[in-house]
């Protein structure tokens, strides 16, 4: 299959990564989420731009991914989480999110739009990731596998067919977006 050949072509993938990042960065900047004030506004619950972008991306992305999956064109990339890895790591990330005011993707885009503090944040992220790599063997032995989740996916957890969960989540997200509009947020 043409896609398989493309996926294995290392040089083509380097260019595809660049193009994908380019479009992603363009979109993030146009969406206003390269702006520290907008991201902090989301965490202070006064500006819902970040949530609106994420939820719309989830709806559109989900429809395409599951349609392509049922056509055998793509495979899912999910892995098992745990309390020790997902919850602890997620809370550390959340703390950094509020302190820096950008996340790993928006920091790169914010730097492109002129934010020097975002570049300093990117250096910090590489240091943080480097620290993780150094302590990874110890963490892997001690905390990362503590409280392993019972399932990989939500349909698996609920014992419900994937299609039903997809439709349910889409309805829930559209309802939530509608609610934000009604509330004038």
């Amino acid at each position, binding site marked *: 299959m043409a896609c398989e050949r493309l996926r294995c072509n290392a040089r083509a993938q380097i260019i595809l990564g660049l193009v994908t990042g380019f479009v992603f960065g363009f979109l993030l900047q146009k969406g206003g989420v390269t702006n520290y004030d907008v991201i902090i506004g989301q965490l202070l619950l006064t500006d819902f731009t970040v949530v609106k972008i994420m939820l719309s991306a989830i709806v559109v992305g989900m429809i395409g991914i599951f349609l392509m999956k049922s056509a055998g064109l793509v495979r899912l990339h999910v892995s098992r989480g745990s309390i020790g890895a997902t919850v602890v790591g997620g809370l550390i990330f959340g703390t950094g999110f509020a302190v820096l005011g950008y996340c790993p993707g928006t920091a790169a885009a914010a730097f492109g739009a002129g934010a020097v503090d975002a570049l300093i944040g990117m250096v*910090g992220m590489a240091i943080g990731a480097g620290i993780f790599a150094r302590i990874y063997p110890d963490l892997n032995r001690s905390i990362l596998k503590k409280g392993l989740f019972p399932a990989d996916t939500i349909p698996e957890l609920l014992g419900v067919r994937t299609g039903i969960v997809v439709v349910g989540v889409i309805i829930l997200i559209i309802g939530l977006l509608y609610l934000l509009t009604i509330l004038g947020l």
Partner: protein
Amino acid sequence: MIEWLTMESWSPYIVGAGIGVLIWTAFLFSDRPLGCSTAYAKSAGMVESALSRKKSEQMPYYQKVTPTVDWQWTLIIGLIIGAFLSAYLSGTFTVLIVPPVFAEAFGTNAILRSAVALAGGLLLGLGARWAGGCTSGHGISGTLQLSLASWVAAICFFAGGIIVAGLIFGFSFI
């Protein structure tokens, strides 16, 4: 078309839909979710490798996440260029160190903002690798696949972020 590209901002729903379509292409052409935090680990690995190639090759994490220039790494370079072009086209490109909301609360000291940004970045890099993804990898690409870990991670990202932002700036909803 040109007017559209030079607009200062687009509707968040259009931007979100665009990111959704971008994730289709990432899955289809590259067999990957759209995640940004791996690149920072790869960069750290490149530094480790430059310091001591032998030592970095023996580190288990860099056997998992190889410190090489690939799709995930050039993604970050693309992000910088794409955002620059978008800002440049709309005339909003401005070099700044201290964002307005930060300046309002803590003053315009660039050294203070830099130190805070470095500390925040460090926590983000550590937390993203610890949780196995970031706001895009878990928060969008993972949640849309209905991954349980990604939904839990996204909730923790925002729970942690909302609490800490509230502690820093004061809770707006109290």
